[in-house]
């Protein structure tokens, strides 16, 4: 399983765009990159998944360079309610497999 490295914490202000980068130097050919969000005392919530280039949904964008050794989660115009821990996961894109969460990035959005 590919190891991931993310910043431990980030601060931002409401209305700003936030980019959280995850390094996964030993990502395998069959691995996908998935991001989850977790609020205190709640289970993680799926945000977005991608394999290469750019993926966008109603919540976030995910940028993956050609070498796939890193990825960047982009949150447009954050609000106070985006304060949470964000996890980058790398693994096979099918169910039933081990899902390894790293330490995550604690994002704190200030007014």
């Amino acid at each position, binding site marked *: 399983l590919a190891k991931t490295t993310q910043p431990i914490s980030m601060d931002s202000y409401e209305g700003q765009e936030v980019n959280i980068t995850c390094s996964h130097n030993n990502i395998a050919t069959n691995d*996908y990159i*998935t991001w989850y969000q*977790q609020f205190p*005392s*709640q*289970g*993680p*919530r*799926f945000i977005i*998944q991608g394999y290469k280039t750019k993926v966008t949904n109603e919540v976030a964008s995910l940028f993956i360079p050609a070498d796939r050794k890193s990825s960047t989660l982009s949150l447009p115009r954050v609000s106070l309610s985006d304060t949470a821990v964000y*996890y980058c996961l790398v693994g096979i*894109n*099918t*169910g*039933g*497999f*081990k*899902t*390894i*969460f*790293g*330490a*995550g990035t604690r994002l704190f959005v200030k007014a």
Partner: protein
Amino acid sequence: EPEVTQTPSHQVTQMGQEVILRCVPISNHLYFYWYRQILGQKVEFLVSFYNNEISEKSEIFDDQFSVERPDGSNFTLKIRSTKLEDSAMYFCASASAGSSYEQYFGPGTRLTVT
């Protein structure tokens, strides 16, 4: 919107006792998971379950743990003889066959072992 539910929300038990944590996954999902999160720490994978058998398990999931899908709706985690260090939040998750990478997590059961 369908959601994963878990009961109880909080369970207090004495060391050495058996506990059963219950989960009702989303109805058409086929992949089921248990995780735990010790307070202030990261989410840890315990086990995945598919087609009525364990797909993968972590080193944490030793002989004191077992999972079962006793009927078409429930998915349970049993801890046979609880230890103090089993105190944690336990999350159940499920995923569909079509989007198996997208796991839906329940609200968790907080287990306190005294």
